[in-house]
């Protein structure tokens, strides 16, 4: 058989047979309404859901204030706390004990108690201490909120001691945010979810395409035809890759035109990297299908595999925040390289010189998974 392929005639029939198979697969895919819906609906749904639901914003925290001083200075201080929308003032119950009870029950996120001698101690330059109670259950929010309180106090102290809110300090850090100056959390989540959806759809679709032939028994019929297993595999992968590229375009369209995520990099580079990610996804799906006996099993195993793949990819939470051990585990996650590429190309607008390591890793995953899955698939056929 292999010798035959090398002859000119064999080569031609190989091409023709593969073409015929590809057109069969393509027709089968395009007839599958459920699949087409998944290709379109999944990205729209997921991107919308994730970008609306997830937001690390620290604002409108519920603050209770007990002002025992009730002086002009203390009122000015309270006014400053709520000026930039980090805190909203809520009912504190009137006393320090009711305030702390409310923080304890989770009705308030933060509480501030201003002592009665606030004004006097400031005037006499001895310095006053305000008590700040913060609900620490949400460690991340509490950390950022206490940073804000420190900055508000710093500005307030400046006002008190120099008469101006922003006195010229001897070291002035001029902080600017690169890539995402408005700190839009959507810009973080949408590229990640775009990558995640592509991975999900490509594994699901490819495992379904293989399992379906297994379940209905048409795989045996295919084997009786003169095509070999390599051709079957090529015919499975090529049309899926074409259809999944459509998914990439749809996701990109939604991201750029509906959610206004900037696309600063090179489109061709993006498409090339996406193609690699698709091949990884398809190979993963085929391997899943090859190991499973039926559709239920393949679904459950894909659930099992996708859970860590998504969680460790950095699509939803940054990989740098993970503990060291899990950062090492995350190196084995093919999706993390694609997520890194998508974010770098879209938001940073960098080229291959910045992401070549990720691209190389993705390429390695694509080759290894493709070879492994096709070997497994061919063994099953023979």
């Amino acid at each position, binding site marked *: 058989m292999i010798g035959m392929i090398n002859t000119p005639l064999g080569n031609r029939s190989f091409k023709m047979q593969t073409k015929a198979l590809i057109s069969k697969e393509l027709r089968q895919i395009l007839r599958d309404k459920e699949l087409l819906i998944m290709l379109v609906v999944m990205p729209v749904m997921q991107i919308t859901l994730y970008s609306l639901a997830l937001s690390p914003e620290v604002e409108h925290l519920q603050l209770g204030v007990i002002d025992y001083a009730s002086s002009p200075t203390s009122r000015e201080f309270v006014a400053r706390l709520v000026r930039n929308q980090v805190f909203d003032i809520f009912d504190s119950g009137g006393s320090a004990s009711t305030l702390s009870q409310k*923080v304890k029950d989770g009705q308030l996120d933060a509480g501030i108690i201003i002592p009665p001698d606030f004004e006097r101690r400031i005037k006499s330059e001895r310095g006053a201490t305000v008590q700040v109670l913060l609900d620490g259950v949400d460690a991340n929010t509490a950390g950022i909120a206490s940073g804000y309180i420190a900055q508000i106090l710093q500005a307030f102290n400046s006002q008190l001691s120099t008469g101006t809110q922003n006195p010229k300090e001897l070291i002035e850090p001029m902080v600017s945010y*690169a890539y995402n100056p408005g700190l839009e959390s959507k810009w*973080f989540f949408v590229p990640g979810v775009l990558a995640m959806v592509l991975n999900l759809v490509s594994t699901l679709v490819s495992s379904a395409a293989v399992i379906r032939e297994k379940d209905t028994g048409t795989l045996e019929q295919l084997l009786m035809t003169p095509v070999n297993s390599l051709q079957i595999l090529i015919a499975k992968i090529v049309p899926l890759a074409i259809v999944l590229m459509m998914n990439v375009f749809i996701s990109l369209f939604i991201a750029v035109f509906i959610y206004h995520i900037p696309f600063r990099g090179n489109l061709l580079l993006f498409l090339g990297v996406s193609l690699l990610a698709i091949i990884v996804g398809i190979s993963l799906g085929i391997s899943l299908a090859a190991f499973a006996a039926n559709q*239920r099993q393949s679904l459950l195993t894909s659930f099992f595999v996708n859970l860590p793949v998504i969680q460790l990819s950095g699509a939803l*939470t940054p990989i740098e925040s993970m503990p060291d051990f899990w950062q090492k585990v995350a190196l084995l996650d093919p999706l993390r390289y694609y997520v890194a590429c998508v974010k770098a190309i879209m938001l940073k607008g960098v080229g291959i010189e910045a992401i070549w390591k990720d691209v190389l890793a993705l390429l390695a995953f694509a080759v290894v998974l493709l070879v492994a899955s096709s070997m497994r698939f061919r063994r099953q056929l023979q």
Partner: protein
Amino acid sequence: MRRVLAQCSKELAQFRRDKLTVALAYLLPCVAMMLYGFATRLEAKNIAVAVKNYDVGRYSREYVSTLYANGQLTPAYWKGRDVMTPLDLGVAKACIVIPPEFSRKIKQRTGAEVQVIVDATDVNNARVIKNSILATTNYFLQKEGLSQVRPLVRPSIRLWFNPGRKESLYIAPGALGVFLWIFPCLLSTLAISREKEQGTILQVYASSLTAPEFMAGKLLAYFLIGLTQAALLIGFSTILFQLKYVGNLPMFLLSLFAFLACSISFGLLAGSRTNSQSAAVQLVATTGFTTSLLLSGFMYPTRNIQVPLNYLSEIVPARYFVEASRNFFVRGSDFSSQLYIIFALSLAFVVLFTGASRLMRRMQLKA
């Protein structure tokens, strides 16, 4: 009642026999818990920051060592002059440029500007980095006696419940809510859809067993299994994440029971709506997973969820259980302040269970 019990024991026997499902029921939740509990962290700890120091004086050296002193920021190195390069290449999350004459300007009391560029692709940590650099700068100014600002008002910040700001105390109790939602309902939905796929449901249609009885039997069986799952998962995470029971135990148990009943009823409902096991699993996995992960407040506070999804989040049972779990393991709230949780979960259970029974009864008539 006898018929319900018979249903229940049949279901339990079937569950025990299926090794794959047993593994799915106990192994997968533990693995998932470990993964989510350990790997979901919002705030970065060792943030790589590059410093380009054009100054040769004492102040700049001291300033840089103060920046790295508290361990949150770690040094990153790169070659070249362009400050965007380390950010572009991803080797640093922030870049600080100290101008020439920095020390001299400080000595002359004219003041020096330090340029700080923060990679804001990760919005949350961009804020963390900015706060950290500003706080360190102020600390440095105070320490060196350079500041004109006198600290007349000092905060005495008390972080309640979690003074060390350990994120595991936030994530792990929340993850309990996510997984005690997903896995029990996955099992119960498989139970219904298996009967449908294998056609054994026709026997149920033909028998005198009523739809609520049929459903109650399944509910009871999977409730018992759910309890063992919960016991395993809670025990496992207590050891793994060093959670302590600080809340009201009766309250927590009541919420747990109501929540498990909700989860199983949701699975029954999904199973009755779909016709094949794979469709049922897909329905439960996608809707259950996305709602409990995104709308329960597991990662970020629920008040950050935008319109119109915030209304949807009000009816997601996982949201209430995440609350109850955090109350019990971290906050230590008392019984009376949490009554709304029991109320909400019970209401959700009644709605889900009657929905599932109704659906089953409709089909019974059709058959």
